[in-house]
């Protein structure tokens, strides 16, 4: 074997996909390490054998991927199939195949690279188990939301989803769309907060060539693309007031104009919107138009924060552990009681998203054990072990509902640290400046 061949073998051995090559008689002449791992065969046992005797797939007799590439003259990609492993297990795989030609373009063999899809399929299956379109919710509140989604499945009425960041507003929107009669039609998602106000109009309603400097050609907006389907407007309350007026017109009349054009276009789009801001506060401050709010929230859905539905925490933890065990190929399916207590008593300002991150952090840190220990949780959980971990958080949007309660909590932390703002800020996991700003906002005199 020359140096080049050795190098090629080394490269092929270092990649995660299974790779094997066959000669023109379909005898295997190369088999990389990943292929060994996926199939359970050792390369020395199968080199020289016919590939069909090794993989024992029906495809060998009907649609051999290399034969397809031979006939079409083109490589094939992401071909789904099953193979039998050495132990007889049937594994779903996705493969790419290509023909190896000599200098005279005469086929001399073939190459197949393949990925084991078992874990992916298992993760998908887990996601389907006992949940509502991928959403885990065993609590009464979540079950009521699922019931409401079922009830409105024949309606085209606008839905406004409200909930703190990380509660799963987009997943609820997806569930509404997939259960609706528009499920086979376009489903367009727009995050209203990511576009500057001048671009948002063009993004939503499109523009004509020359409407502004970069408008080099006519472009339809998201509403046009979503015609006859559904549009999901995330963070709708972040939309500039001028745009809110235009959106109101779409809701009322189903019509709009592209930027730079006077032609009025008609559309039929179901609008699902979402926000994490305190709506009453936004209405009071004039950030959100009242008329738009009432139009958007024909069907309002409030997703309670995780701390208000603690019965969802355990199923969520179990779900994340199973998912992570498959992803990381390391089986940790349980969590120590003390760690679970800490999770159950935490306020979860970042909600389900934060819980997922906490579980992943702890999972990654757990080695040589099949159970997550409390000391593997992030530092803020263990720092608060002596006191209640359910401490104050500025990220908690609902605290805006009850500034008195927030002030009491803040004063209590300050008292605990003898009004030492550095210590109090440390305890709260925030900066000293943020603490000072919050004290000022709540009227707490230092």
């Amino acid at each position: 074997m020359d140096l080049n061949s050795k190098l090629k073998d080394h490269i092929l051995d270092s990649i995660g996909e299974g790779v094997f090559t066959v000669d023109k008689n379909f005898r295997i002449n190369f088999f990389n390490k990943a292929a060994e791992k996926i199939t359970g065969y050792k390369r020395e046992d199968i080199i020289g054998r016919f590939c069909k005797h090794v993989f024992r797939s029906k495809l060998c007799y009907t649609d051999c991927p290399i034969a397809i590439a031979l006939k079409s003259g083109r490589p094939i990609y992401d071909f789904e199939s099953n193979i039998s492993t050495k132990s007889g297990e049937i594994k779903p795989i996705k493969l790419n195949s290509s023909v190896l030609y000599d200098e005279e373009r005469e086929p001399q063999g073939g190459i197949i690279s393949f990925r084991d899809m078992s874990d992916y399929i298992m993760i998908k299956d887990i996601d389907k188990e006992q949940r509502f379109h991928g959403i885990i919710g065993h609590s009464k509140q979540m079950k009521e939301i699922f019931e409401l989604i079922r009830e409105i499945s024949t309606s085209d009425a606008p839905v406004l989803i409200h909930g703190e960041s990380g509660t799963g507003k987009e997943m609820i929107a997806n569930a509404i769309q997939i259960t609706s009669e528009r499920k086979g039609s376009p489903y367009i998602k727009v995050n209203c907060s990511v576009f500057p106000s001048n671009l948002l109009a063009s993004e939503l309603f499109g523009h004509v060539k020359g409407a502004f400097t970069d408008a080099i050609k006519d472009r339809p907006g998201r509403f046009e693309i979503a015609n006859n389907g559904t549009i999901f407007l995330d963070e709708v309350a972040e939309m500039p007031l001028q745009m809110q007026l235009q959106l109101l017109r779409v809701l009322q009349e189903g019509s709009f104009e592209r930027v730079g054009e006077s032609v009025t276009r008609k559309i039929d789009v179901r609008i699902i919107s979402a926000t994490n801001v305190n709506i009453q506060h936004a209405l009071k401050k004039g950030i959100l138009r009242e008329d738009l709010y009432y139009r958007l929230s024909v069907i309002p859905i409030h997703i309670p924060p995780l701390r208000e539905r603690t019965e969802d925490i355990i199923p969520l933890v179990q779900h994340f552990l199973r998912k992570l065990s498959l992803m990381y190929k390391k089986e940790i399916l349980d969590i120590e009681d003390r760690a679970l207590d800490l999770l159950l008593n935490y306020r979860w300002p970042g909600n389900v998203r934060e819980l997922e991150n906490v579980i992943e952090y702890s999972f990654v840190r757990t080695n040589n054990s099949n159970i997550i220990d409390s000391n593997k949780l992030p530092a803020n959980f263990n720092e608060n072990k002596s006191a209640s971990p359910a401490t104050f958080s500025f990220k908690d949007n609902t605290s805006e509902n009850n500034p008195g309660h927030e002030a009491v909590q803040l004063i209590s932390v300050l008292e605990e640290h003898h009004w030492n703002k550095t210590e109090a800020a440390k305890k709260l996991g925030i900066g000293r400046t943020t603490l000072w700003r919050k004290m000022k906002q709540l009227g707490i005199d230092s």
Partner: protein
Amino acid sequence: MSEMLANQYFMARKFSDAESLLENALSTSSSPKIIKRKLIICYVQTNKLDKALNLFFRLIKDDIDFILSADPLLDDCPCAELLGNDYLTIPPDDPYAYNLGQGIMWLYCDIDHSLNYFKNLYNLGYSKGMIPEIITLISEKIKQSAEK
């Protein structure tokens, strides 16, 4: 189309698809005996028995061991699966075709069985031409093996 595709068709037991590609490959292949060995089986399975007989005769005259050594696993020789499962497509009501097909195919698996079918053909009146020569070649091979 290529020899490689012919090999795949043969491996997938698509004998009629493999046949024409193997015929094309015969003139250019670096291993014509392997092609011939496969092509004989294709001809039997597509009922082109005269072509099968001609090629079979030429091959065993040249190297009878090449057919005798065909291995179901190492060479993907389909003789065992075709004979064992009665998948041969020879018309059973035609004694000539039946005995000829069986005689050719059995040489890939069992030389004594093969000889019996060729002897049947001889007794059916095919006592001139290639049949008696094939009987001689096979008989000599059996004798040689017994002497070893």
